[in-house]
């Protein structure tokens, strides 16, 4: 069957279709699979603002560095965050000034560190979308149960629907969305129905291996072609092509826990500005566990010519940025999209021969 879908996508000769993937893991998986090179020229895939590390503003990184330089404080976080530029430097570079920064693979690793070193105040750099936010609720449960007083979170948590809404409202020329697969594991496929109805635009929840990508893209292309018929029949333009792990309602336990700990608020997306209701913050009753996450809105570029913001909005391809592949490479990233291994420029650089 997959060969059949692939053939359809190769031979497609209908109206031009532009699909946006709004998940950094999709950006990486699509680039790695080389799928773009075999699609019909009439099907274009563009990357959106789907890497939470890439869209964290410089003010957030600056605050992590500020804390890491404080006496007795250690920052722990995921590896990608160590390389993202603040207004003056990265977390990694701040180590040269004496900042205490440790990389971990899981937020749960910090529980052991906090227990073993009660004299150290640990702050976890907690970035993420809906996939990762529930993991922080499990960490918060553990902090409370273990009565740990030396572990807090500095959060930069963001939700997908407000930014998709913002893109559509801003007139992004898109025909459909490759909806984020692992965000949808938590939220369920019904999460996108209001947006699909508001903008009459198809959403297809898609997996990550090459076969799943082909099936998902085929499904979304078919939805684009049959859009009017589907709407006339009263169907919603949301389909789940990742049924092995995504359900209609998602992981309800995870969603309940998110609601227990967090509340929505405005959040700055790097290069895009403040999007109302797109952030999640610890509720006031849990402020004991918050290292000061609100209001970290400063958003500065380290290279004025960097066009990451337009790449993140799907307005230009990485290669259209004058810095791409010249002064901006994974070894000397000038902007956030080249920093994270899930950034679109990083992936486009790595797979530039595909």
């Amino acid at each position, binding site marked *: 069957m997959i060969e059949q879908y692939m053939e359809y996508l190769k031979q497609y000769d209908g109206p031009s279709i532009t699909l946006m993937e709004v998940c950094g893991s999709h950006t990486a998986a699509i680039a790695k699979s080389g799928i773009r090179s075999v699609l019909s020229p009439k099907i274009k895939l563009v990357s959106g603002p789907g890497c939470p590390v890439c869209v964290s503003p410089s003010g957030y990184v600056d605050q992590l560095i500020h804390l890491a330089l404080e006496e007795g404080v250690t920052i722990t976080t995921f590896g990608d965050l160590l390389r993202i530029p603040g207004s003056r430097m990265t977390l990694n570079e701040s180590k040269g000034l004496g900042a205490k920064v440790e990389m971990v693979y*899981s937020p749960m*690793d910090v529980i052991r560190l906090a227990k073993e070193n009660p004299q150290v105040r640990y702050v976890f750099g907690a970035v993420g*979308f809906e*996939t990762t936010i529930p993991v922080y609720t499990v960490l918060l449960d553990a902090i409370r149960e273990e009565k740990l007083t030396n572990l807090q979170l500095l959060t930069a948590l963001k939700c997908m629907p407000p930014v998709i809404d913002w893109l559509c409202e801003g007139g992004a020329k898109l025909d459909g969305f490759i909806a984020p697969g*692992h965000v949808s594991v938590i939220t369920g496929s019904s999460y996108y129905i209001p947006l699909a109805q508001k903008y009459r635009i198809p959403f297809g929840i898609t997996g990550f291996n090459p076969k799943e990508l082909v099936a998902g893209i085929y499904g979304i292309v*078919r939805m684009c072609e049959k859009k009017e018929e589907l709407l006339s029949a009263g169907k919603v333009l949301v389909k789940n092509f990742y*049924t092995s*792990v995504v359900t209609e309602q998602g992981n309800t336990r995870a969603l309940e*826990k998110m609601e227990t700990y967090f509340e929505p608020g405005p959040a700055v997306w790097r290069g895009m500005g403040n999007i109302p209701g797109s952030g999640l913050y610890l509720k006031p009753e849990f402020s004991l566990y918050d290292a000061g996450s609100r209001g970290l809105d400063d958003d500065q570029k380290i290279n004025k010519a960097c066009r990451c913001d337009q790449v993140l909005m799907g307005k230009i391809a990485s290669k259209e940025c004058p810095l791409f592949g010249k002064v901006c490479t994974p070894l000397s990233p000038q902007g956030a999209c080249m920093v994270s291994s899930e950034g679109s420029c990083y992936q486009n650089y790595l797979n530039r021969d595909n």
Partner: protein
Amino acid sequence: MCVALPGKVTELIDDKYASVDFNGNIVKAATGLVEVKPGDRVLVHAGCIIQTVSQDEADELEDLFKELDAF
């Protein structure tokens, strides 16, 4: 960042953690978001099990595409 990998639960360590086998590599993962038992295939993200994996995706996809083709 949202990468999640499928593995198989080999044992429950306690009421908060399980051992998960990723092609022979056994990793400890938190169970706070999903109730699991040994033998379950699960999806793990950032050291935490976020969902159990069902096996019949291919059949469901065919049904979905048939439904789309019917329009």
